């Protein structure tokens, strides 16, 4: 069974169809890329799937249950996590605290317990911290553990978001242009991180412009154009698709 199924999904903003009648499915354990020209509706699709936008029409199913219109925080509880194209880092906190927030759902969230700092809270917090330091190491940010997020370079913040998303222990991880604005070395590092994540059994959905990365790591690619599905398939299939080539070269008439 598919982990995520999208059926007839549409989103309008004041008459503009950002996403229109879109259907696709994502199988567990795969790396699934979504590509398309600027304005094709990729980020809108992410925002719909993760509950930030409410669809105008259509269904989004996680494990067969409709999740359209649920809040992002509820979806996080169902095992969905994401990063952002425009960074949504907590700049008022340190790197490791950012990641610890990612672990939020797996901690003791009782107000009273936090307020009087029960020993159990302290214990779990300490374990959580250790775990989050590991995650920072995992994404290659070991030297930033106690740095203020506000003082970290852009490339590191991109990875910080991935670490934070991972801390939520997602089954489905959506990465919105993780390599955008990074140099070749950094892109390669991100590439490695994504592969490692997938190897842990997390299903990854990726929006990315770096074709080399997309073609290299994806199991499956969905091509969007003007909010609609243009093509779908394995990297080889997509590369051979005439419509895709046309859309990307802008020669489509």
């Amino acid at each position, binding site marked *: 069974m598919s982990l995520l199924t999208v059926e007839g999904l549409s989103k309008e903003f004041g008459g503009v169809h950002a996403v229109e009648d879109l259907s696709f499915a994502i199988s567990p354990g795969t790396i699934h890329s979504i590509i398309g020209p600027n304005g094709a509706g990729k980020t809108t699709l992410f925002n719909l799937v*993760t*509950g*930030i936008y409410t669809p105008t029409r259509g269904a989004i199913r996680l494990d067969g249950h409709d999740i359209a219109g649920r*809040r*992002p*925080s509820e*979806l*996080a*509880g169902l095992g*969905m*996590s*994401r990063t*952002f194209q425009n960074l*949504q*880092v*907590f*700049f*008022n*906190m*340190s790197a490791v*605290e*950012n990641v*610890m*927030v*990612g672990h*939020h*759902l797996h*901690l*003791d*969230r*009782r*107000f009273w*317990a*936090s*307020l*009087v*700092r029960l020993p159990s*809270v302290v214990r779990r*917090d300490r374990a*959580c*911290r250790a775990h989050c330091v590991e995650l920072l190491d995992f994404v290659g940010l070991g030297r930033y553990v*106690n740095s203020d*997020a506000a003082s970290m370079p852009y490339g590191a913040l991109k990875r910080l*978001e991935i670490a*934070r*998303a991972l*801390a*939520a222990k997602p089954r489905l991880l959506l990465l919105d242009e993780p390599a955008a604005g990074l140099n070749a070395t950094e892109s390669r590092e991100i590439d490695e991180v994504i592969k490692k994540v997938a190897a842990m059994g997390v299903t990854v959905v990726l929006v990315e412009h770096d074709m080399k990365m997309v073609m290299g790591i994806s199991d499956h690619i969905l091509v969007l154009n003007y909010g609609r599905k243009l093509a779908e398939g394995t990297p080889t299939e997509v590369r051979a698709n005439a419509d895709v080539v046309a859309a990307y070269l802008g020669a489509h008439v």
Partner: protein
Amino acid sequence: MWKSPRTGGLAVLVALVTLAPLGFPNAYFYDVAVNALFNATLCVGLNLLVGYGGQISLGHAGFFALGAYGSALLTGRYGLPPLAALLLSAGVVGALAFVVGRPILKLKGHYLAMATLGIGIIIHIVLKTESAVTGGPDGLGVDAFSVAGLTVSGDQAWYWLAAVLVVIAVWLSLNLVDSPVGRALRAVHGSEVGAEVVGVDTTGYKVLVFVVSAVFASVVGSLFAHKNGFITPDIGSFFRSIEVVTMVVLGGMASTFGAVVGAVLLTLLPQFLASFEDYEAMVLGGIMMGTMIFMPKGLLPSLRLLLAKRRRTP
């Protein structure tokens, strides 16, 4: 960082409030100190909302006044023991904050400022108008504060009560900030969407901290009423709301000790400025502007940065 300023800062605070009375020659000093510590407690609560949660409130004096009037009326009119009145008032204020907090906290920035301002002003108007209950603008007398037959009387007794209160408030605040709940709260300030997608119920936390800060205000209001023995609706005025927010911002947002410092300094300031007479307002306004221009992060965080810099370049 990991050893956190919790233990050290708290120890300094305890030492300060314990030693401070050595410099108090008479009851007037105790009186000012009690007001300073009450304000500090209120500001520690408000700082959770404004500094850590990133949600502005220009109506907190309203909650303070509700706590004060709640205690005054429940003890004076209905004969409740003061402690029960304090707790009941805090409960009611918390419930009220919960009810109005849900719709209000959907608003952002200046719209939230407007809405909280409106809540505060409405409370003030009700207290002023319903004079049959509240005594109107001329005020209402309040009985002494006593628990289990022991009456808190005299400025010294009140000082120690206020000191214990502020230490507890700071302790709770420090605990909270460095806990799962507190981190979620600060995350809401950092990025609401960012917090949402990792499972933080942002609305829930905003409402929670709004309620918590309102309860802080209510408790301080209750004690203030008993200590002063007389209250007027002006304790809930728009100016008071602005004043307490100024204390928090001046001391340093997102800094528990900053809130304490800001509250203490701004409470003492008018006592110093009294000799400026007609120029008092100009000096106060000038100090507010100057502090925020030269230390935009507030007194304590800015000083801390300065010290850190000096240490790095000996």
